[in-house]
């Protein structure tokens, strides 16, 4: 009784590494909460994909990519913050998504689930997770300088606008990866909470990324295990596991 290694579990683990790492950068960018709401932009894509009978993942990815481009363009044009732009687009997308998504599919889209996963799907998710991780590794120096001081980054030869755009795209992709088992409402938790745990425990970049990714994976393992033992719904259980680890990290910091 307990944890069995299924493709669905491995998919969740690989997605958790990606959300942990991108969550760490989102936290440094001070856009974690905005990133959380950004996941809802996937909803209209999921709804339309179900209506047209195509893979909801593709619908979610397209909607998020369009959302990311919109946010980036509008941010540049209006001078408003990323956070504000995500807020505007999120509300519109949530309304549109609720209208177009069939109501029986809406709960799954919002809260995720444990449906069986084919090997092909697993490989796709693992490949996309690796893509996100590779992105973060390659871009980390440019991201750090841009976050520290955009002018300094610019003078150093970093194309700040390109850095911000790639970040939004990678972030959108990360949310897509988490959507399947966590759903649009809960995926943000695996972006926010592991990064918060990492920030509690460390002050250097490599360990921040490592702890953030690690606690994200731990949350998934505990979540799967508890959900298997007690028959709880998976998504909320994973999120609560993450919250529990966060509480423990608070104790650790006091000591």
């Amino acid at each position, binding site marked *: 009784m307990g944890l069995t290694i299924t493709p669905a579990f491995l998919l969740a683990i690989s997605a958790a590494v990606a959300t942990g790492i991108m969550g760490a950068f989102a936290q440094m960018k001070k856009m974690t909460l905005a990133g959380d709401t950004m996941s809802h932009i996937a909803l209209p894509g999921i709804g339309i994909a179900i209506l047209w009978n195509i893979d909801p993942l593709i619908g979610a990815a397209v909607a998020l990519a369009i959302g990311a481009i919109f946010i980036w363009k509008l941010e540049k044009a209006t001078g408003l913050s990323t956070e504000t732009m995500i807020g505007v687009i999120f509300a519109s997308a949530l309304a549109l998504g609720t209208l177009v998504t069939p109501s029986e599919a809406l709960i799954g889209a919002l809260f995720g689930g444990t449906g069986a996963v084919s090997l092909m799907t697993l490989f796709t998710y693992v490949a996309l997770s690796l893509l996100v991780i590779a992105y973060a590794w390659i871009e980390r120096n440019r991201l750090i300088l841009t*976050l520290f001081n955009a002018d300094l980054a610019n003078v150093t030869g970093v194309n700040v606008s390109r850095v911000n755009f790639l970040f939004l795209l990678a972030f959108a992709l990360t949310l897509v990866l988490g959507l399947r088992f966590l759903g649009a409402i809960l995926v943000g938790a695996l972006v926010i909470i592991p990064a918060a745990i990492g920030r509690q425990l460390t002050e250097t970049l490599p360990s921040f990324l490592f702890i953030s990714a690690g606690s994200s994976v731990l949350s998934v393992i505990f979540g799967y295990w508890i959900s298997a033992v007690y028959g709880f719904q998976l998504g909320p259980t994973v999120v609560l596991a993450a919250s529990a680890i966060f509480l423990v990290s608070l104790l650790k910091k006091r000591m």
Partner: protein
Amino acid sequence: MQKHFKKRSQLHSKASSDGSVASNEFVKHALFVRDLNVFFGDHHVLQDVSFTLKRGETFVIIGPNGSGKTVLLKSLLHLIPFSGSVTWSPDTRIGYVPQKIDADRHLPINLENLLGAKAAILGCSRKEIFSVSEDVGLDAETLKTPVGHLSGGNFQKALIAFALLGDPTVIIFDEPTASLDELAEEHVYDLMDVLRKKRGLTIVLVSHDLSLVPALANTVLCLNKVAICLGPPQEALTKEIFAKLYQGPHKFYSHSSSHRKILDQRHHDDHLE
């Protein structure tokens, strides 16, 4: 590395496209600025500023708050749109020290992470991180300190070390001593002078503090939206100039249009005197 050079060559192509500076002019000069104008919306922030920067000199820009000093620096760095020309010598490598308060100190990175990020982007060796840190007087232990835990003085040194990475020919400092106590301030100026001699740097420095200017500057530019004085400090900083530079702005702090009219009128009068 490649990226850095690409960016720099972009800067050059922009600079040379106006064709106004002959290449032999750069033997003694690092920079030519001609008729520089900057607008923020309807607000004319810099008006017709022109000057040249000699190689190896310390060029100090002074002026009251809101006089356009930082705007001028950002124009020199091509960070904001402007009209007129800013032409750097083709061999120029710029190190920039922004105002301390403009940097995000809450990142979970230590100083070595920060310097390492720039070194990686420019393709500098790790050794250079240690040599620039040593040059500004930061020890190995400080390199391991999170940027959020650095003292004000050490953070200032860290920003200077950051600027020195990549072996710049020109250092641009924005108010290096703002929010430092006086002792630390003198130390920063001494450090800059040592670095200038040791590395053969040309220094452009913005300051609102006048006390150390005469000893430090080869050339001083007094700025209050227009260039009010330009030259060696002994000649440029007369009592009249001083009064003109620092008397007005407090009265004109308000953004109401009637006040701006008075300001424009005063500038007009000043030019007629």
